[in-house]
């Protein structure tokens, strides 16, 4: 009886924290946080499956963005320095609804065309593509009455029926038509 009183039978747990720390540091070093975010894009079908037909799209319904091999911009036939201006121009173009004769008839008919050169850097292309998509997201967000960030969250989670409804409503008759044209071959 005297024995059990003397020895408090506890395991010394002071090094537990050290062990846990060691494990924690191991996981911190060996792992990377999963990064599954990016700019989404839907490619057109296989060129061999497309029946060639000449569809005449009026000039006013196309918003042309050209990027040359030295990353210089040309928007609607005007050279441009600052790519951030594109966002407002795209919005103005899409939401014109036939008012200005040089801009689009309706959002449904509006097409934004991005044409890069084979020598254009990926960095510049992403910068431009980001602005154009951002312009569309801004417009959808305004239609849905939410912020741009919230809209992107909704659009990323259409499995939720509520989100799906908001998503479909905002995109009704308002498609995101961004055309990424094939770059010209340097020699034909």
């Amino acid at each position, binding site marked *: 009886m005297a024995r059990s009183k003397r020895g408090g039978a506890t395991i010394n747990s002071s090094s537990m924290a050290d062990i*846990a720390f060691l494990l924690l540091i191991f996981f911190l070093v060996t792992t990377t*946080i999963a*990064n599954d*975010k990016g700019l989404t894009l839907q490619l057109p079908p296989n*060129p061999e499956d497309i029946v060639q037909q000449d569809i005449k799209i009026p000039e006013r319904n196309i918003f042309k963005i050209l990027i040359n091999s030295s990353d210089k911009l040309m928007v609607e036939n005007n050279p441009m320095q600052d790519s951030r201006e594109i966002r407002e121009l795209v919005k103005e173009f899409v939401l014109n609804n036939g008012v200005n004769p040089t801009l689009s008839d309706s959002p449904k008919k509006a097409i934004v065309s991005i044409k890069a050169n084979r020598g254009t*850097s990926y960095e510049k*292309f992403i910068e431009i593509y980001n602005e154009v998509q951002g312009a569309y997201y801004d417009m959808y967000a305004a239609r849905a009455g939410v912020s741009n960030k919230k809209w992107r969250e909704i659009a990323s989670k259409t499995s939720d029926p509520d989100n799906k409804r908001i998503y479909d409503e905002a995109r009704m008759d308002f498609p995101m038509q961004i055309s990424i044209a094939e770059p010209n071959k340097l020699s034909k």
Partner: protein
Amino acid sequence: MGKFKKKTKADPEIPTSALPDIIFMLLFFFMVTTVMRETTVNVQQRIPKATELRKLQRKSLVSYLYMGKPRNTSMFGGEPKLQANDVFIEVKDVIMWVEKEKSKLDEVERDQITIALKVDENVKMGLISDVQMELRKANARKLMYSVPQRTE
């Protein structure tokens, strides 16, 4: 004096018995939220940043394709290359690679495969458009430019 004596009764040490629990909690958080690096990327990856990002709906449907200048330029040259699953591939092999990746998925989900491109900022659009053309031929038309968030 009696008043002061009362104070000295309080144990001046901070109890550390909860420390292991806190650390374990952190440990579990990191264990759950992180994934082990699967492939060693052998190409330079300085990826441009963007703001208008969207999250992928299903991570299991994503296959990564890396592009950039090889890290070991003396061995593989200085021209941008494609890397898929630890090996360098040519543009013409993209269709075959896509088919292989598709075969890993369930039959019903095969046409929903998403290709995530991780491209170095200095890669030219010529190479990217060639790859995109191959992806169109392979009928893998969901594409994502995997880029990090730009903070302003």
